[in-house]
């Protein structure tokens, strides 16, 4: 289908490229008060881009409407401004494990069994538990009139748990596991253990406090903190930083599209640019940003292979898989560094008027008081605030516990001087 589209467009414009994706997803959701739901969906989408006389146009939609979409792309071209865009020529593709064959074999029965098993295990008095499991398989096909023609399979499996305690006035605990291959028994058991471990400590009596304190951020929480750093490396936000911009030298951050079986793994991006591992932060020094073909063309530099163009959605720049450098501090050392501070295994950063500024204020309903590095109970009404970039200058420990959280491999951090409040 996309070969025919390209052939037709090739006779009408100087250059064209096409991204076609297919998807076959099954999702199972189990929860306390409503019926279990099994959903299946299939679809095939295409996005067409045309370039001629210094102009670029695009359109997207269902693959079966390919002819109409090509016509819409030509109309888009006609009203666009002058813009440089040089489509890439073919290059050898790296070998990347993007899909596991077993995922296609995961049916609704297997997903139902996973959700039932986890829901049964986590059920308890005073708990409302929801468990979901999803598997998705598909294919991505990229081609252009310069000869790029590549395709790769994709698969993803996710299992997630949400638990709410008591009368429901607190935020629920959310934990999940997302990867490109089916989770092993031990990985599912670890997810259950992680949930149980966070539910077990008693809720401490509410005591108002406000202090600057050491906080041990677990890998899931560190992933949330990364958002502010990443915003500075994304597309047009990236400017080669002044020499004065430095994080702690224990921070090294890579974008790695070649990590096997991760959500962002792929050999080629949706612009037809071959992907590669990129160092974003080298021992505390920001060194590179990411761009897609369009932004890179405007800036007169090569694309980094981070273009996403899916269906009717507008083209965007996005990271693939992130790897934050591990430290050497084991659990006891992390506890010692945190002392009588707070352990925060997971956090959702609140709304920020400007994420690039790095300021945050976030409720931490799942925060734990430490006594000489040991959890003694869960805090009631805890809020954390500060500036992510300030925190990066007050890193006191980096864990050797690096693990995958979706598309990011991150360790624990212990940071001094975080503003913690309960009132």
């Amino acid at each position, binding site marked *: 289908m996309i070969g025919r589209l390209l052939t037709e467009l090739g006779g009408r414009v100087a250059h064209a490229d096409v991204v076609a994706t297919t998807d076959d997803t099954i999702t199972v*959701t189990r*929860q306390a*008060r*409503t*019926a*279990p*739901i*099994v*959903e*299946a*969906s*299939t*679809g*095939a989408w295409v996005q067409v881009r045309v370039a001629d006389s210094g102009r670029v*146009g*695009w*359109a*997207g*939609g*269902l693959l*079966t*409407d390919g002819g*109409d*979409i090509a016509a*819409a*792309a030509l*109309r*888009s071209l*006609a*009203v*666009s*401004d002058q813009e440089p865009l040089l489509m890439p020529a073919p290059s050898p593709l790296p070998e990347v494990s993007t899909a596991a064959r077993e995922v296609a074999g995961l049916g*609704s*029965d297997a997903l*139902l069994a996973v959700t039932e098993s986890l829901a049964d295990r986590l059920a308890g008095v005073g708990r*409302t538990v*929801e468990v979901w499991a999803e598997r998705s398989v598909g294919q991505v096909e990229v081609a252009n009139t310069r000869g790029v023609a590549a395709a790769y399979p994709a698969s993803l499996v996710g299992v997630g748990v*949400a*638990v*709410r305690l008591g*009368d*429901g*006035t*607190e*935020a*629920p605990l959310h934990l999940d596991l997302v990867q490109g291959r089916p989770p092993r028994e031990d990985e599912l058991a670890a997810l259950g253990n992680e949930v149980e471990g966070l539910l077990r400590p008693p809720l401490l009596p509410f005591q108002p406090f406000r202090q600057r304190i050491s906080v041990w951020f677990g890998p899931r929480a560190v992933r949330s903190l990364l958002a502010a750093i990443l915003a500075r490396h994304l597309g047009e936000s990236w400017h080669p930083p002044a020499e004065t911009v430095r994080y702690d030298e224990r921070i090294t951050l890579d974008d790695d599209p070649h990590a096997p079986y991760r959500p962002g793994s792929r050999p080629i991006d949706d612009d037809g640019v071959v992907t590669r591992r990129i160092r974003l932060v080298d021992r505390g020094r920001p060194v590179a940003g990411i761009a897609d073909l369009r932004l890179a063309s405007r800036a007169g530099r090569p694309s980094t292979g981070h273009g996403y163009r899916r*269906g*009717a959605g*507008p083209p965007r720049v996005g990271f693939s898989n992130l790897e934050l450098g591990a430290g050497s501090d084991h659990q006891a050392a992390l506890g010692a560094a945190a002392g009588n501070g707070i352990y925060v295994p997971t956090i*959702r950063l*609140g*709304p*920020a*008027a400007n994420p690039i500024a790095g300021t945050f*204020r976030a*409720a931490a*309903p799942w925060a734990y008081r430490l006594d000489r590095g040991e959890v003694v109970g869960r805090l009631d009404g805890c*809020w954390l*605030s500060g500036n992510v970039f300030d925190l990066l200058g007050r890193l006191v420990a980096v864990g050797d516990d690096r693990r995958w959280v979706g598309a990011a491999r991150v360790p624990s951090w212990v940071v001094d001087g975080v503003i913690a*409040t309960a009132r």
Partner: protein
Amino acid sequence: MREALGRAVQAASGYVEVRLRRRWSTAVVFRKQRIEVATEYHAFGGVARVLVPGHGWGAVAFADPDQALAAVRRAAELSAETRPERVIALAPIPIRQVEVPVDLPDDPRLVPLAQKREVLEQWTAELLSTDRRVTDSRTSYGDTVVETWLATSEGVWLHDLNAETTAAALAIASEAGSTDRAVGSFAARGGFAGIHGGAGVFADTATRAVDRLAARMIAPGRYPVVLDPRASGGLILQGIVNLCRSRSRGLERELLPLGMRLGPEFLSVGDDPTVPGLRTSLVLDDEGTPVSHQMLVQNGVVVGHLHTRESAATDAATATGHALAPTLRSIPMARPTNPYLVKGQGDLAAMLGEVSLGIYLTELVGLTIEGRRVTLVPGVGTMIRGGALAEPVKCPPLSVDLLALFGRLDRVAGDFVWDQGATGLHDAGPLRPITTGAPHTRFLDLEVGTLQS
């Protein structure tokens, strides 16, 4: 189509529902005066949902109308695989067949893309020329036409066509190393001509961004806070209506229980999908239930919830007609349409006149709820001094317990308006448009800025 869907909904036992939706859209986006996006797209989404007696839900999303029959059969298989802990029931509804004429006057699909670009280009130029301190902007035009077909095994039939146009602006102003921004939006139901109602949004957004440059950070303390109708509507949506949606999936929200006192006697909140002319008004919801006006809070007490048929049956309530699918291919869940705060008395001048020192907020950049904790992120603030509006101020996020917040609601004005902006519902998944309606409101003694100091 009616015959084909009629056959499909008879292809399985139990309750069967098939919804098809086709959407045609246009998007034009400018970054300053450079065009970023100018494109059209159309999409199709079908969903077949089956509840086999004694089992849970099976649902299949598909992308080709000819797959409806096969999707129903597959959904029935999936339903049969589930083992619910209790019998699932659906609240009874009146069965209606609704066929809305699909002739669309001033159909935006027939307006050339170049004409849409021209309109936005002109408004963008007006925005950028408002003041020399406007240094950057992002502006957008959009239109959407949606055709829906819905059939159920109980005999419901719906075929309708709706269109809307939207415009939005982000203006960034800079001077002497200081940068600030403002956003504005407009949405109208109907054909292309409706977009011209949004012409004023662009220059107004630029002016607000420039005005903010002079703003200083407010001194931490406790203040009376007056919200304009848009901010009041946003707060009502997120802080009350969102917590009165029966749970369909996800533990993000815990329902505010019926009978709970939430605020003072003059706090009454409802959701009315039947308001004529609003772009989010409906006849039937996505389960085929006729929509109804629902009071959620009456005289300060929670009196109702928005229901799907399943949640209504579970709670021994009546289906309210608020089962709405957020995307083309998703299953319905309880969602608001036109939530509103019942008007009180007086106007803004009267409300301000009683405040010797306070804050007037005209824009909320964000509003989140974690458990019962509400966090409002103000976009624009103005000090109130001696009963009148004074200098612009920057205001850090306000974080308040939900009950404490509405317990401090002191006045609701009589100047009710429906917001013509493009409001969404902050929830997992894609946004679905919502129209909020509210007058000015005033809250006493809110803590501002002390968590940051």
